[in-house]
């Protein structure tokens, strides 16, 4: 019985631990905002923090509805907003001393799985299985035995490359920061850290989060139409 040989309280890897911390913090913040929004008086102008939240959601809706619209936007908008908020926080979390979660292959590939199922749901809901199978077979029917395997590989490779892109970007930042911190004395390390984290965490991290959002939006809208 080698299969049941495990320890119940094994210490988590640092990336998974920071993922759990981020999910915990985000859920608390979102629940508090949700309760406050429900109590809001629709006749008065919202103030302060809630006004900022409403502005962010409005801006996001305006931006995303350029790429997907109507029913598709109403169905996938919340998913896309959750993704950008989680990734935006997860990629900049090493400013608070935690390991970035996306530097773990497991966390990054779970984003692959999520994107895969999002695309599949879009296809089944807005395209229908019959049209999907016809598009897999290709336009020219006699070429179908050649085109089918290529198209099937394409179904998997798109989400896979999206997950790996996140993983390697965050991992390269982590490796470079670790290397420079190991090479320098801590006094220089503090000075170098300002530049390192500004470039690798804030700039690259936010750009990768944004790129993941854009690619999922475009892939979902393409899957729902073609």
């Amino acid at each position, binding site marked *: 019985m080698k299969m049941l040989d495990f320890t119940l309280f094994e210490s988590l890897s640092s990336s998974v631990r920071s993922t759990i911390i981020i999910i915990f913090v985000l859920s608390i913040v979102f629940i508090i905002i949700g309760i406050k929004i429900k109590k809001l008086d629709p006749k008065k102008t919202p103030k302060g923090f809630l006004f900022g939240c409403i502005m962010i959601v409005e801006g996001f809706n305006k931006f995303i509805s350029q790429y997907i619209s109507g029913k598709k936007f109403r169905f996938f908008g919340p998913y896309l907003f959750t993704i950008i908020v989680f990734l935006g926080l997860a990629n900049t979390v090493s400013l608070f001393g935690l390991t970035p979660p996306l530097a773990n292959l497991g966390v990054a590939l779970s984003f692959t799985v999520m994107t895969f199922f999002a695309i599949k749901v879009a296809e089944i809901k807005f395209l229908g299985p019959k049209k999907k199978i016809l598009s897999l077979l290709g336009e020219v029917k006699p070429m179908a035995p050649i085109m089918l395997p290529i198209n099937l590989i394409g179904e998997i490779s798109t989400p896979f*490359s999206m997950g*790996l*892109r996140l*993983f*390697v*970007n965050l*991992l*390269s930042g982590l*490796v470079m920061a670790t290397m420079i911190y190991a090479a320098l004395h801590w006094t220089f390390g503090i000075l170098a850290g300002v530049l390192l984290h500004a470039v690798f965490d804030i700039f690259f991290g936010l*750009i*990768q989060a*944004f*790129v993941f959002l*854009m*690619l999922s939006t*475009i892939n979902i809208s393409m899957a729902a139409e073609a």
Partner: protein
Amino acid sequence: MLETILGSVLRFGQEIGYTYEYAQGMAYLGAGIAVIAGIGAGIGQGYAAGKAAEAVGRQPEAQGKILVTTLVTQAVAETTGLYALLVALILIGK
């Protein structure tokens, strides 16, 4: 030139015998060779950035949309370089 390098590497292996250290060194060499793929990603990203600058110069009012498109296309062009980096990291960690 490549033949000379490969020939000397093979002769070195035959002289000292194929040990673990030899394999380790070859893995580091392979990691270095794999990252050459970064050239392609660099050329692709630079081309996209140059074209984006041209487009902004021609149509300054469409700057927002051009910026978004440029970021997405550059990230797609970067993918091959990232795969090379991943292969190199796997080879180093072997």
